[in-house]
């Protein structure tokens, strides 16, 4: 079975067999990390790229009063910023939510693969653009959507992101987040999260049991929060054929 990174990259663009082999070589050593363990902390010197191959992690900050804000979820196939080692220190923490399979990719390996494989370079840059797009969408979510739509939107997004890496079965997927963690993600209190989940259940949209989230009616959930997946930039959600473009930098007619 292909690893989650390859699957994710292939959801953006086609890869050759050579590309796939190179990607497999990028993840030789997998490390098991328990749930709720920090992978890198604010202030640490970033010296490698972290790749999540299985499980869930998050980016977060802790305010001086102890309040935590989660700014991003990392799901299988996601990595932290590819060029993070340009910076002197981390400005936020990355920690696991559930037990994870993590790969530490050294800087040299990234340099090597991007020098030799233009397709892979393009999909890596694609990942970075999508990370930015997701962050923008989360800003919209926090600032402009009601709490019930906000949580519904998160569920729709996770469904789509997990589906491309083969983690969704019959609209059900692992959902290891506690209600406090959802609250810390959504800028809501745990009480409001409880009530919102109750409402989404009562509307027949979702079921959340034993850390498994089932979306009972995906179309209706998407309509409920007006979910538009364009910001995930997946091949199968594009309006039409991809623009033809050579790499690097030289676009063709078309």
């Amino acid at each position, binding site marked *: 079975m292909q690893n989650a990174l390859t699957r994710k990259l292939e959801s953006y663009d086609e890869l050759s067999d050579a590309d796939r082999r190179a990607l497999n070589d990028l993840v030789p050593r997998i490390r098991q990390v328990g749930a709720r363990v920090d992978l890198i902390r604010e202030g640490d010197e970033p010296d490698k790229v972290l790749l999540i191959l299985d499980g869930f992690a998050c980016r977060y900050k802790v305010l001086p009063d102890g309040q935590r804000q989660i700014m991003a979820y990392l799901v299988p196939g996601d990595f932290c910023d590819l060029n993070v080692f340009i910076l002197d220190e981390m400005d936020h923490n990355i920690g696991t939510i559930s037990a994870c399979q993590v790969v530490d990719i050294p800087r040299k390996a990234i340099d090597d693969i991007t020098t030799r494989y233009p397709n892979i370079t393009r999909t890596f840059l694609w990942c970075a653009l999508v990370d930015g797009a997701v962050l923008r969408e989360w800003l919209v979510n926090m600032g402009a959507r009601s709490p019930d739509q906000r949580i519904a939107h998160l569920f729709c997004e996770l469904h789509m992101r997990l589906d491309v890496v083969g983690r969704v079965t019959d609209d059900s997927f692992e959902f290891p987040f506690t209600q406090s963690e959802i609250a810390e993600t959504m800028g809501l209190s745990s009480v409001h999260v*409880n009530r919102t989940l109750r409402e989404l259940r009562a509307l027949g949209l979702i079921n959340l049991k034993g850390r498994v989230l089932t979306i009972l009616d995906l179309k209706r959930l998407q309509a409920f929060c007006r979910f538009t997946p364009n910001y995930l930039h997946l091949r199968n959600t594009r309006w039409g054929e991809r623009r033809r473009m050579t790499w690097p930098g030289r676009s063709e007619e078309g």
Partner: protein
Amino acid sequence: MTGRGNVETLVLLQPVAVDTNSPDRDGMLIVANGLLVGILVHLDAPEHGETTGWFLEAGFGRLNGVRAPIFDTLEQATRWVRDSFRG
């Protein structure tokens, strides 16, 4: 004016029913020195699990956006409001 110097803030609670779109319905208006500063709601919905007590549903003025703990009793809530207005 509320909460000035070392003058104790007078906190009064007044029962009110609150629509929270959930079974949590019993509430209290919190009036501090004559001004409405917040609304407490008792957590009754089974979804809250072990968590029961009085939740600061909304805060105004100095309590706007403040994250309060969940209070076991109204006395605790009143004390917390008074402390929030001190200093």
